């Protein structure tokens, strides 16, 4: 096993900059995820770690060894591709044993190792089937096995589950996490699916437009997003954002809605922070739908008045879309049985603990 360290990694494709000065440290034996929308440079980063693409600038270290000039076959990494990259002209056993065969391992050892891997992945009864005839689920298992058999120091997975059906994807998420914990394998997992990243990873690196936005544990990413992009990208339904400005009255701090009169009361710590913030007249406050509560009556003076526009019943919960002021809409997660008709006036309770404040110009969280 090994840790992976990227230093000022940059990749250009002609005029396009895919990855911009990326500095990151994936710790040894941990499960890390690179999360971001498509085209954010996450796959390029992965390809550079594997050696399939050469960085324009910057360095890649495995532990303390600089890997830039080491060819991909010698880096001792396992790579699982989004589309499996199964060799359809071989049997399942030949696929799994490919890496060993290339390394010149003798037949008996290959057979034994393939048997072990097949057992782990429940592929034993398919070993002699032509790999092209497998279902997509089994294909991805074969791809996993083919990478695992060489016991790589670093395991790279590039959206490996995005083509699988939903139930099997959930199952594989659990399995992968179990295997990773069991053998303490360093894994780097690329995904655009926040659920995968949040549920499996020890650390998440959020990327956008080739720039690292935030690197931290799932809790940090969820609870303390550093900017609007991260805040918006994590969570489903996504965070509510309301443009506002800061106002201080009688020693109390408020965030006043820009397109309306909704005011959010701040706690003392936040108030002091925002008083000192130079851009405090151009802010955005954010709150996750799951941290808001709807009330029928304004039983507390700080509740915000809003009007129901439509409902999204999702089964275990109902997403209520409301109108706040003239222009802003706000989503609140309500009880599954919530069925108020459109036009109903509701009162929103905001827990100041879960309130996020961002500078509208820079997009960064005000902390």
């Amino acid at each position, binding site marked *: 096993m090994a840790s992976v360290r990227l230093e000022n990694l940059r990749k250009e494709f002609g005029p396009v900059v895919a990855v911009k000065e990326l500095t990151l440290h994936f710790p040894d034996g941990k499960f890390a995820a690179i999360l971001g929308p498509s085209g954010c440079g996450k796959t390029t980063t992965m390809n550079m770690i594997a050696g399939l693409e050469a960085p324009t600038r910057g360095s890649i270290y495995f532990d303390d060894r600089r890997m830039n000039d080491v060819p991909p*076959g010698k880096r001792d990494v396992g790579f699982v591709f989004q589309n499996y*990259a199964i*060799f*359809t002209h071989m049997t399942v056993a030949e696929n799994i044993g*490919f890496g060993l065969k290339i390394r010149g391992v003798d037949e008996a050892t290959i057979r034994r190792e393939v048997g072990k891997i097949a057992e782990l992945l429940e592929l034993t009864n398919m070993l002699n089937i032509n790999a092209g005839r497998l279902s997509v689920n089994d294909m991805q298992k074969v791809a996993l096995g083919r990478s695992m058999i060489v016991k790589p120091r670093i395991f790279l997975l590039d959206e490996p589950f995005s*083509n699988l059906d939903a139930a099997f994807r959930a199952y594989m998420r659990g399995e992968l996490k179990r295997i990773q914990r069991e053998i303490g394998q360093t894994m780097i997992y690329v995904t655009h699916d926040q659920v995968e990243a949040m549920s499996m990873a020890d650390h998440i690196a959020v990327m956008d437009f080739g720039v690292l936005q935030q690197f931290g544990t799932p809790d940090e990413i969820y609870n303390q997003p550093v900017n609007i992009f991260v805040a918006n990208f994590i969570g489903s339904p996504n965070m509510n954002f309301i443009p506002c400005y800061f106002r201080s009255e009688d020693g109390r701090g408020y965030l006043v809605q820009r397109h309306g009169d909704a005011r959010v009361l701040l706690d003392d710590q936040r108030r002091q922070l925002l008083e000192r913030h130079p851009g405090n007249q151009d802010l955005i406050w954010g709150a996750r739908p799951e941290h808001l509560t709807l009330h029928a009556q304004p039983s507390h003076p700080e509740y915000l008045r809003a009007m129901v526009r439509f409902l999204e019943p999702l089964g275990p919960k109902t997403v209520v879309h409301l109108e706040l002021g003239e222009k802003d809409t706000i989503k609140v997660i309500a009880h599954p049985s919530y069925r108020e008709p459109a036009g109903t006036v509701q009162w929103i309770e905001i827990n100041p603990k879960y309130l996020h404040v961002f500078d509208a110009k820079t997009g960064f969280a005000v902390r």
Partner: protein
Amino acid sequence: MTQRPTWQIVLRYVLVLIVVGLFTFPTYWMVTMAFKPKVEWSTAHGTIYWVPQNPTLENFETVLTEYRGKFFRANQSSALPSIRSSIIVSIGGTLFALLIGTLAAYGLSRFSVDTGDLPWYIALGRLALLILVLLPFMVLWAWLGIIRYWYGILTFTLLGIGADQLIGRLLALYYRGPTGSLAFSILQLRMFPPMAIVIPVMIMWSAFKLIDTWYGLVAVYGVVTFPFVVWLMKSFFDEIPRELDEAAIVDGASNWGAFFKVVLPLAKGGLASTALFVFILNWSDFLIALLLTTRDWPTIPVFLNSLVSSEIGAQHGPKAALGLLAVIPPVVFGILIQRYLVRGLTFGAIKR
């Protein structure tokens, strides 16, 4: 759905029959003629025999054996050497084209950045520029009197390659987008009518003493069919996802290993159909073989031509017999690789 009127169905089948007839009748005529005795295939009586009345192997005998001194079949030579010649040069040319073409196609498919559709004005412009650049040198070479010798040809060829690459580079400086440096150079080979190419090749080959040798023909066949191999195989390689190569490389294979162990086996359907296509091209070539062979290595099409002369008349029967024999190799080849032809079209390695 309503039933079509009967006359439409009848008309459809009549049309089908006419088209099928048009395509199969020449074959039918050749096959039957091969088995007709001379009285039946010659037009002396003015009678047409649709079916051989007295089937015979006489024509095969005539074409495969040598006659000398018999009255009208004077100096009739056997077709056997030409069959041998055809087999050697066609297979040789095909293998040569496949060898260099497949590697080139893989390179273009995976490692070249300069691919993509080329606008016609770039294509024609490049060609025109190349000819313009080379013309004065040609005059100079002719004036120096070296154009007919191997060193003149060699230097001129190198000059041509250099000029072509230079034009490509210069174009790339001023024109963003595909200028087709490599892929286009390969295609350039096919932009002339073969006749225009074969005469210079004949002059070159005589300077290199390659006329009437099997390797001379193999080289020309290889080069002439090379562009087909490149462009066909490139499209097959493009179909195979790059991730497969990458997976093999990450697992420890070299670029060559990924090519031979993973990509080529997956493209074997394409390889088989390309091989058949190129083989048929070489096998049926008349023009190149006519100009580049004299005594020892004429191929079957050239030999067929020699069966018509003022001395012996038109030997239709033996011609048909030899034609029938010449059909066998492509047909057998086709049947042998049929499995791959079908598979080549249906493989789907990866979900996209």
